[in-house]
């Protein structure tokens, strides 16, 4: 791979390309977790610097630090060898660092030009906006990206792919040297991805360093020049892309021998616990979020649901948990038809839901560990009209023991726990409702490896006690290692069902891509 002339001409193209930005020994501590632990990261000029890692590995946090959204607890940033302080997004822009988030940050009601110059308008005599120069400059920027977009168009009317181009143009308007792209292709169609890659190559040739974050391995291999792997907040490795292959990436990302994480389980299932037929949830603006889904679950069974983001997995769980009263479909619990359709009633029937986003949906941050645990089952601790301290304390203690929760004092505030322990509190809250079914949406997201395997242990133990567990995971190894049976979802439909014996990574991945129109081999899948 040859590098064409670098725009600035400051450094001649050499065998080892120039590092434009270096993050040194970055540590970031959040209440509840250490997101980054002593991480180094190099950004090479005129290259695509790929960053990969599992969910919660710390990629986004590192990007936020570079982009000025967050500040590092420790460590420094070196731009062209000189230490810099980035205290805000504005600072980052001044240093030539731009970021494009997974969710586009555009004003759909304004024109392309207005979006590009938002908050740094070109002004006439310092007061009025100079529309003419803005339009001219916008046209230049878009021309640089070689896309047929009219600067006068309203952004909301553009295709998603073109909106992304506008984001890039917005960043370029600031004369950036470094452009961070966080999962830029997650909303794009295959042809739009091709266009984006052309734009990236164009930018590379102009000397812009790209930092590219994605989960899609084939894309990374295609576009990347350098790859940095993070795992559990630590730097694993940095290599030129030419030296490595897909299996190396996966090994570095996942690291451990995945099998060791999962407890061996006896697979003896009881009677049918849950039967769902025709579960349907309409999408606002047409189509389905959950498209006529049917599934069954037995006592003692762990059912894994795999799929890409937006496949409808979380929505399916929300339907089961009673969060989506507008959903239609038939549900039987232990053979009895279920009419109740509110969260409260479903909890009373024995359905406990562990939401995906702990902070937003699972915990009350102002309350103590104990109060959070008890929240869903307060009626059980009444004596007369009042809550009995004794009943509360004994239940809290029992669950702390059962889940080996690491907590000094149950009355301490919930935010003082680490991510894994917080997750255990959410699980404890669910278990205290005496559930028959545990619905877990990404139960190991953002927690460290040790806590992960503990959570898996707990799941296995609960299943052995006769509970039915349904869990969602985006991590193949988890689903393969933990589930007795795996359902794959794509575009709201169940596109594959595999027993533990049948399931392979390839089979799951191709089933999850059905309906996406991406180059993929159609797989035969049977629903047994």
């Amino acid at each position, binding site marked *: 791979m040859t590098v064409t002339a670098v725009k600035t001409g400051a450094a001649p193209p050499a065998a080892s390309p120039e590092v434009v930005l270096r993050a040194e020994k970055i540590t970031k501590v959040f209440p509840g977790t250490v997101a980054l632990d002593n991480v180094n990261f190099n950004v090479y000029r005129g290259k695509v610097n790929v960053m990969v890692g599992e969910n919660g590995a710390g990629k986004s946090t590192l990007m936020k630090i570079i982009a000025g959204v967050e500040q590092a607890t420790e460590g420094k940033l070196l731009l062209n060898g000189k230490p810099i302080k980035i205290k805000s997004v504005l600072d980052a822009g001044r240093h030539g660092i731009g970021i494009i988030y997974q969710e586009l940050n555009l004003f759909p009601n304004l024109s392309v030009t207005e979006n590009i110059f938002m908050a740094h308008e070109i002004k006439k005599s310092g007061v009025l906006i100079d529309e003419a120069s803005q339009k001219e400059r916008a046209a230049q920027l878009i021309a640089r990206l070689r896309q047929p977009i009219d600067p006068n168009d309203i952004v909301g009317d553009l295709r998603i792919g073109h909106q992304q181009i506008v984001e890039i143009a917005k960043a370029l308007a600031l004369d950036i040297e470094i452009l961070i792209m966080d999962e830029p292709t997650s909303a794009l169609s295959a042809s739009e991805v091709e266009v984006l890659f052309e734009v990236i190559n164009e930018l590379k040739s102009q000397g812009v360093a790209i930092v590219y974050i994605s989960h899609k391995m084939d894309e990374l291999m295609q576009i990347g020049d350098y790859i940095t792997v993070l795992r559990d907040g630590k730097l694993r490795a940095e290599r030129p892309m030419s030296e490595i292959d897909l299996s190396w990436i996966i090994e570095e990302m996942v690291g451990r021998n995945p099998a060791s994480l999962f407890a061996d389980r006896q697979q003896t299932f009881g009677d049918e616990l849950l039967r769902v037929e025709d579960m349907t949830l309409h999408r606002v603006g047409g189509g389905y979020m959950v498209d006529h889904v049917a599934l069954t679950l037995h006592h003692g069974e762990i059912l894994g649901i795999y799929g890409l983001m937006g496949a409808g997995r979380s929505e399916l769980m929300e339907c089961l948990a009673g969060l989506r009263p507008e959903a239609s479909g038939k549900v039987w619990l232990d053979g009895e038809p279920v009419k109740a359709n509110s969260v409260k009633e*479903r909890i009373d029937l024995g359905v406990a839901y562990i939401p995906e986003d702990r902070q937003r*949906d699972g915990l*009350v941050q*102002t309350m103590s560990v104990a109060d959070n645990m008890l929240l*869903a089952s*307060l009626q059980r601790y009444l004596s007369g009209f009042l*809550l009995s301290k004794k009943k509360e304390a004994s239940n809290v203690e029992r669950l702390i023991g059962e889940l080996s929760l*690491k907590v*000094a004092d149950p009355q301490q505030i919930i*935010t003082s726990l680490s991510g894994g322990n917080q997750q255990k509190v959410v699980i404890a809250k669910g278990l205290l409702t005496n559930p028959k079914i545990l619905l877990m949406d990404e139960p190991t997201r953002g927690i460290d490896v040790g806590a992960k395997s503990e959570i898996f242990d707990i799941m296995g133990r609960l299943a052995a006690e006769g509970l039915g567990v349904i869990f969602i995971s985006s991590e193949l190894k988890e689903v393969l290692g933990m589930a007795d049976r795996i359902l794959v979802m794509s575009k709201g439909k169940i596109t594959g069902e595999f027993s533990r014996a049948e399931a392979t990574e390839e089979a799951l991945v191709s089933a999850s891509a059905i309906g996406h129109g991406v180059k993929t081999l159609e797989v035969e899948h049977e629903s047994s």
Partner: protein
Amino acid sequence: MSQAETVAPIKNSRKFTMTDFQQLLLQARAYIALVVVISVFSFLSEAFLTPANIIIVASQVAINAILGIGMTFVILTAGIDLSVGSVAGLIAMIAGGLINEGLVLPMFGIIVYFQVWAVILISLACGALVGAVNGIIITRFNVTPFIATLGMLYVARGLALLRSDGNTYPNLVGKPEFGNEGFPLLGSGTFLPSDVVNGWMQSMSGSMPKILVDSLTFLALPYSVWIMIGFTIVAAIVLTKTPFGRQVYAIGGNERAAKLSGIRVDRVKVIVYMISGLCAGMVGLLIASKLVAAHPATGVFFELNAIAVVVLGGTSLMGGRGNIGGTIIGAFIIGALSAGMVMVGVSSFWQQVIKGSVIVLAVIVDQIQAQMQKRVALQQQQRLELATQE
């Protein structure tokens, strides 16, 4: 279990540090402020800390405290109730009308007069009903509490004025032939008649130390103070010892998580606004009873006092944090400050400046404490991690 036990000693062996002390000071800030206010004024004015004056201040405090109790429930859910002053006015007018004019039922051609206890119950129920309307508008129609209760502020005031065409119901003593006498007792009555207590005091003065004799005055506490005490105890128990109270805190802390925990968020919120309406109604009754007249402008701007005492008591406007005890202390701080400044002779213009400054200062200190709490939580977590690594 084993982990929990190995970790526990870490906490116990910890020394009492400077941060702990600062935290303690910050947590007790409302009490400290109250003590400071009382000490300053009792130093400046001899009459300030006399039993007679304390009773006067306490019965004034009762108004703000009762409104503040209702407001605490609302603010704990991260809501606000701007209508309480107007509701107090409306309820005063409803009670006044029931006593002086009775309930006119034109379709039957009769007028019903209720006994005083029934008037009180009906009025309180009306207060709760107005609160229910607030709550339903907020939860059913997704109107923010600020706007919904701002609307109710005008509507209730308008209804209060409409009730008597803008006139006052004077002389709410009732008539023996209607059997509805005794309403003024609510606002100015005491459990032990004050002349009885005065008699005891006279007979004992001489044989007993003066302080003891003076303190007998407290036996003649007005009903309004007893009502405040009663409301405080019930509210504190409801908030700390019942599932409902726990749910109020949870909704204010994280409404989504509360909903996912099976809490019927809408129902809890409606009840919370009903409590606020009921407290406002109680205040309307107390004022009408004390003045022996119901004026449609009763309670103008009371909502602001109520919010002030809640905030002063350390309850966060973001919801989820705070307690009834703080609100009561807050009400006493405002009460003692107002009474003290009057007694010392601070100009009424300066009184407003000082009151306003105290409220803002209280919130600034709150923020400092919140920051500190975050830091302590972080330290706690790090200690815990260190301990479990070993």
